[in-house]
């Protein structure tokens, strides 16, 4: 599914922040907001067109539109943080953008270990749980051999 080796570290943490739940980010909200910052692009909700390919490699087609929230912040020292996430949660978008800005700073390892690792672990656990639930419903189809030859 997702090949972590081909992602840059920043792509990885932006993806983790986008998939995180707001309740998982809220405990870090005070630490994230504890810095002077301005909103370059205040959190805004919009639509984006999702495209797909049949089987992953066919001709592209339009799957449909989904709501997306995005935000850009800049800290006082000039670092900018971006966030794009599915859904309509403006608080989540702002916190994710702040986290992206902090992660580009002088102590990325601190934020990585405190925030990203635990978020990623929780997401992996949710995913494994869902895959296990799905696997239990798997049905093997087979065709009876007809007596033609």
């Amino acid at each position, binding site marked *: 599914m997702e090949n972590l080796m081909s992602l840059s570290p920043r792509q990885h943490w932006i993806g983790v922040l986008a998939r995180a739940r707001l309740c998982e980010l809220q405990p870090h909200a005070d630490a994230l907001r504890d810095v002077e910052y*301005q*909103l*370059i*692009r*205040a959190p*805004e909700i919009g639509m984006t067109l999702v495209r797909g390919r049949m089987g992953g490699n066919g001709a592209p087609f339009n799957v449909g539109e989904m709501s997306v929230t995005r935000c*850009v912040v*800049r800290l006082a020292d*000039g670092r*900018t943080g971006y966030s794009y996430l599915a859904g309509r949660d403006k608080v989540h978008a702002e916190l994710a953008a702040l986290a992206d800005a902090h992660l580009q700073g002088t102590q990325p390892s601190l934020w990585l270990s405190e925030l990203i690792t635990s978020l990623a672990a929780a997401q992996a656990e949710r995913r494994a749980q869902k895959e296990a639930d799905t696997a239990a419903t798997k049905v093997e189809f087979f065709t009876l051999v007809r007596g033609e030859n």
Partner: protein
Amino acid sequence: MNAQLLQPAFVDPVLDAQRGFRGALKALAEPGLIQSLPAAPSLEGLAPATYALCLALLDVDTPLWLAPAFDTPLIRANLAFHCGCPLTTRREEAAFALLGEQDLSDLGGFDHGNDRYPDQSCTLLVQLPDLESGTGLGWRGPGIETVRRVSLPLPHGFWLERQRLEAFPRGLDVLFAAAHQLIGLPRSTRIAEELA
């Protein structure tokens, strides 16, 4: 794009963009009448009214031609971020052009539209130091009941150039901006005698 240069734009993106668009519509509907855009943000090198017009009118479908005076990294970065408009160096490709008063004596090359689609012409956004310190001219035409006295501080060369390029219905529409104010000069306006 240099993220260090980015600055916030409209405080309320939807309503402020609508106000800017409304201001541009009214300016072209009533040529010569000053419209004001009080809530516009400013950017170094661009007057608030000019920037508000850019934010309201430009998007990914409108190639913009920048006069050399406006072609700074700061303006480039912020227009690319907030408007997403492509920048072009070829005048004939531009849907909008951003000019200063020193660029007005040569308007050749901009798209005039064609007889079937005169609306496809380039729209000029011209930034001036102010809108009222020039020689008074009488404007006539659609949107003006009889004659309107307008005193834009423009070089004489601009009026000659406008006359030279006139080929109604083809032509160029111009929006003049200074500080928080705006004046429109559509192609249909006729410039009459100089008023003392």
